[in-house]
């Protein structure tokens, strides 16, 4: 299954934007860890900006960056959102409230607890009526999302954007599911090569036993294993180098996902 990547968005610890992060990803500059900085969303109307949680803002920020560089119309583009935990803070707050005798659940919090909250806010912000799929695959959401995008592109022959994002739970859930940082990645992909295409990406299911790609830099590798969306980092590092290459992503019990990239320029 082939697609063409036309835009990339990235936010993570010490990784503030795709262009800004390329040197650290290729190793030409030392990677310097720092907290993830999530910019205020310029996309959302004021009422929605007040209601949206941090994971939503993370997803919207990387999505916006990817679309800015791709030059596609977000209103006319289908989306796939992949997240393991969605908004962990809200799950915690709801469970905490429901363990009290009063059980006074906040309606806004409940509304935002759905796994597709980011997709909902995205479609409001971009006025997109195109289809949007929100999915979860535990640690393999990025691989699952890539596969979903590739099959959508194969079936519809239209551009699709993948937005994968994850952030930490507060305690006591953090102890049962440690996610160590906020990390978001967005890829705008198209069915055909255009003047805007950065690289071709060929996806293929492989055997489950295939060794997954890792990162040489210990700081980046710690992010990769500490956040499900950051499982995308080996692919991003290959894209940053601007050369042909292949990465293997862990997927489900019976399969891995092999991604081969071939730069277009």
């Amino acid at each position: 299954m082939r697609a063409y990547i036309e835009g990339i968005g990235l936010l993570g610890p010490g990784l503030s934007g795709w262009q800004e992060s390329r040197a650290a990803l290729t190793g030409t500059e030392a990677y310097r860890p720092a907290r993830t900085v999530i910019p205020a969303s310029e996309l959302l109307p004021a009422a929605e900006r007040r209601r949206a949680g941090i994971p939503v803002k993370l997803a919207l920020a990387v999505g916006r960056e990817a679309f800015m560089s791709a030059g596609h119309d977000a209103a006319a583009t289908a989306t796939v959102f992949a997240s393991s935990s969605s908004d962990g803070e809200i799950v915690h707050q709801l469970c905490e409230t429901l363990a009290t005798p009063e059980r006074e659940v906040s309606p806004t919090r409940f509304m935002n607890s759905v796994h597709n909250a980011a997709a909902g806010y995205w479609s409001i912000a971009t006025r997109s009526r195109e289809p949007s799929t929100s999915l979860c695959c535990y640690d393999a959401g990025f691989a699952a999302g890539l596969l979903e995008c590739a099959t959508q592109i194969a079936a519809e022959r239209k551009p699709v954007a993948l937005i994968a994002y994850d952030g930490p739970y507060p305690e006591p859930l953090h102890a049962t599911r440690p996610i160590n940082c906020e990390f978001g990645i967005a890829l705008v992909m198209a069915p055909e090569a255009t003047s805007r295409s950065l690289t071709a990406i060929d996806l293929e299911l492989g055997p489950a036993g295939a060794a997954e790609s890792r990162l040489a830099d210990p700081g980046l590798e710690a992010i990769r294993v500490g956040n499900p969306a950051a499982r995308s980092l080996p692919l991003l590092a290959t894209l940053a180098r601007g050369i042909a290459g292949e990465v293997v992503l862990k997927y489900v019990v019976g399969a891995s996902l092999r991604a081969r990239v071939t730069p277009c320029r």
Partner: protein
Amino acid sequence: MQPLLITRFSIVNCLGAGSGAVLDALRAKRSGLVPCDAALDFHTAAVDTWVGRVSGLEALPIRRGLEDYDCRSNRIAQVALEQDGFSAAVAAARERYGAARVGVFIGTSNSGILAAELAYRRRDPQTGALPGSFRYHATLNTYSLGDFIGRYLGLTGPSFVVSSACSSTAKAFGSAARMIAAGACDAAVVGGADSLCLTTLYGFHSLELTSRLPCRPFDAEREGISLGEGAAFALLEKPGAGAATDAVMLMGIGESSDAYHMSTPHPEGAGAKLAMQRALAAARLGAADIDYINLHGTATRTNDAAEDRAVVELFGTATPCSSTKGATGHLLGAAGITEAVISMLAVQHGVLPGSAHTRSVDPALKSNYLLESRSAPVRRVLTNSFGFGGSNCSLVISDARVH
């Protein structure tokens, strides 16, 4: 899209376990809704509303070897997997194609959040830690339901869980169909489950969307939803896989977003209409080809008004339609597959389900809404699922012989 055969399906909800029980209830216009109060003892939930509860779950052992996955939503899934010969049909498909060539595309809204709610009542008084028995990956994580079902059925093919609130299990059909078309798998298990939990009971109550009486879709006096729980599954294969004479097909799927509000549908039903149009286009059918519409019909003021408007604009006022949520309650993430299976039963058995609990149709609503169940040939059904976040999905289910 390339139509796909539905070679087996199964269902459980408050109407009963298995297609036979659900079909009997639909024919008789029987509702499974009961009052939700402390007397029912659903984990001390005290919300003045009615619910559709699956009976017998408390005493049901989860399959040996899968104890970590023990929670209400996975138990409901297990019950459904054992109805209507479903797990045996999947085992045969596994033999035919290989375990890695059968995909698992599951939907849920809340997965096992009830397990987390209960664990939060038993936090360590000193440290605040959750009890050691709490299994995050097997209960609370949204993927846990897909993981459980894959393990239960011995399938290792491509898999993920779609979670887009009340459209989740309808949209899982789209992902599965695309995966099969792209050659990522040869067949797929589609479906999902949602259980009652305090998050949704108190959450919908906080939004003033729960009805104090059993929900009354399309009624002039409708005042909100009744929550339900249940699971249903379908096995999708390419045509030519030894179709039975009463086989049904997935003909089309249409997806859209409202781009309007997180919890309120677009007032003119613009997103709903787009999803229905796209489903018809994917099925290469016109509005006149549809014999029955199984509506989303939640019985909130806003959903039913918006959906009616979209249906009338697209189909006119003649196509028979109804919501079955007065019978089952709103199964949230499991609503899409539940109503897809009800649509399959409508096609196989020629039954148009009347709307349980609806007394008189709101005169402001113009579609041909069915108050009574009746028998008639049904060749093709369109079924709607709309969710929070403005996520819309419509499916077209057809008699395989008319395809």
